[in-house]
C-alpha cells in the first residue's frame, strides 16, 4: 500500500481501502467494492440488531450540507438516531 506519511506529515488519501478479514491489512479497492462493503456491513447489523446497533460520528469541520445528509442517513438509512457531531471535545 502507498505510504500514508512523508517527511512533511500525512499524505492525502486518494483511493478507497478495504480490509479482508479482521486480521488482514488494508488494500486498495474500487469505489463500488468499498461502498458495497461499507453499506453491506451496516445493513447486516441493522437487520440483526436494528438501528440501536449502529452509530455515526459526523464531522464538525465539514459543511452544513454534509452534516444534514449524515443526519438524514442515520434516521432513514441506519434507522437510528445515534448520531453526534463531535462537539464535545
Amino acid at each position: 500500500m502507498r505510504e500514508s506519511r512523508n517527511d512533511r506529515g500525512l499524505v492525502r488519501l486518494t483511493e478507497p481501502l478495504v480490509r479482508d478479514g479482521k486480521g488482514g491489512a488494508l488494500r486498495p479497492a474500487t469505489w463500488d467494492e468499498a461502498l458495497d462493503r461499507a453499506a453491506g456491513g451496516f445493513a447486516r447489523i441493522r437487520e440483526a440488531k436494528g438501528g440501536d446497533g449502529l452509530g455515526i460520528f459526523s464531522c464538525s469541520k465539514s459543511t452544513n450540507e454534509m452534516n444534514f445528509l449524515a443526519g438524514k442517513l442515520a434516521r432513514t438509512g441506519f434507522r437510528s438516531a445515534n448520531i453526534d457531531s463531535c462537539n464535545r471535545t
Partner: protein
Amino acid sequence: MFGAGGGTTSYREMEETDVIFLWGANPRENHPIIYHHILKGIRRGAKLYAVDPRRTPSAQWADVWMGLNVGTDIALSNAMARVIIHEGLANRAFVARATTGFEAYRDAVEPWTPEAAEQVTGVPAAVIREAAVTYATAPRAIICWTLGITEHHNAVDNVLALINLSLITGHVGRYGSGLSPLRGQNNVQGGGDMGALPNKLVGFQDPLDPAIKARFEAAWGAPLPGKLGWNITAMFEAMERGALTGLYVIGENPAQSEADQHRTRRLLAGLEHLVVQDIFLTKTAEMADVVLPAAASWAEGEGTVTNSERRVQRVRAALEPPGQARDELWIVSEMARRLGADWGTPTAEQVWNEVRRLAPHMFGGMSYARLERLGGIQWPCPDESHPGTLFLHGRLWETPRGGPAAPISVVAYEPPVEMPDAEYPFQLTTGRRLDSYNTGVQTEGYASPLRRDALEMAPEDAARLGVGEGDGVRVTSRRGSITAPAHVEPGLRPGLVFLPIHGQEDVRVNLLTIDATDPKSGTAEFKACAVHLEPAAAHAAAGAAAGRP
C-alpha cells in the same frame, strides 16, 4: 436553555462593548479571528477580564487575570452574584420582566461571600468584588467562554452559572451585551444546527413532537426512529456492552481525541464494522474495515458553514480532490442508496434548499443567492426580506415580553471528579495552542518555531523535582503513563501542570485523561485529573534496578 443553541452576540458587538470576560477561554491562541474583534474593543476602551487557572497569552493581555483554581468557576460566579445583589446592582426591573427563579438563586448564593470564594478559588476577595461591580455597572458587557468551562463533569452547570450573571444584570438581549460560547471547529455550530445530533432534527426541532415527526416523515418518505438516540459518550458505553457494533466515522479521529485513550481504542477495535471517511489515514482510519477518501470540504467542495456568531457563509471549491477522493455529499448519498434510502445525488445547493424547506424558521430566507450577495447571514432568517439576526433574546426586553421568561438556575459548586491526592499529587489540565490544531493530523506537517509538545510546570515544582528545561518527565495517571520534555512556565501555580493535546504521536495526553462526563452534555473532564511526576532518568534507573525492560 434559551431555546436554540447559539451564541447571542455578534463579533462586531465585541468591538463596541465596555467589558469582556474571557471565562475559560484563550482566544489569543485558539480563536485568533474572534480575538481580532476583541482587540478592537480593547482599543476603543473595553476592559478585559481573563478567568483561567493558567496565565495564558490572553490572560497576559487582560486588564485583570482572575487565576482561579481548576473547576471552581461556580464558586466564583456565585460570589460575584452575591456581591451584585448585596450592592444593589442587580437589574431588578429586568429580573422581574424577563426571568424566573431569582429568589431561590439569591438564597443559594448567600453563603458565597467573597472571602468564602477566595478560600475555594484562590482569587482574592477584593478582586472578586471589583470584577462583580464592574460587570454589573458596565453599560454593556459580554461573557465569552469555551472549553475551560465545558470540559468538566459539571459542564452544563458551569454554563448556567454564567447565564445567571447575565440575567441578574440584564446583560443579554441587547446590543453589546450577551453570552458568547466561542466554537472551536469551523463548523461545530453547523453540525448541531443541521441535526447531526441524537436529540434534535435540523433547526433544533424535536424529533418526538408528533407534528414535526409527521412533516419529516412525509418529506423523507420514511419512518423516523420513535426515540432519541445516543450521543458519543453513550455510544461508547453501548460499544462497551456490545450493543453498538457498527460505526461510521466521518472526518473525526476519536482514536486520538477522546479521553482515556486505552479504553477508546479497545472499544473501536472491538467493533464488528468500522467505516472511516477522511482526507488522511488517521489512527482511527488505520483501524477501519473500510476507508473512504474524501474531498476536503473547505477547498474542494461546495456548501455552507456556520460560525460562532450564527453566521452562515458559503464555501466554494477551488481545487479538484486528489486521485480518486470524492465529494462527501456523493459518498453519503451512495451509502444511503445502498441502504434503501435513495435520494439521488443532490448538489450542495439542492441539499441546502431542502434544509430551508424543513427548517424555515431558521434558514428560510438564506438562499445561496442571498448568502452570496450579503456575504453571509446570521440565523434566524425566516424569509427573503429578513436581514438575519444580529443578537438573540431581544424579546426579553419587549413590552409585553416576547416568549417565556428565562430561568435563573441554582447551581452548586462541585470540585473536579479526580482531585490530587498522596499518590497522584499534581493536577493535570490540558488545552490547545496557536500553532497546532486538535490531534495534530492537519498541522504536524508544517514546521513551527512555536511548537512545543511539553509538560508545562511551575518553576517551584521543577526545582523540587530536580527537573530542568527540556528534561524528560514521566507523567502517570490511574489510566496510563507517558514521557514528555519539561517546560518551565511561570504562568502556572505550584501543583498544576499543563499538557497540550496536539502532539499525539509522542506525547499521548489522552492516555492520562479521565472520561468523567457530564451526563447532560457528554463532555469529558479533560481539564482536570490527577497525576504523579518523576524525572524520566530516575524512572529508567529504577526500572533497570528492578529488572524492568
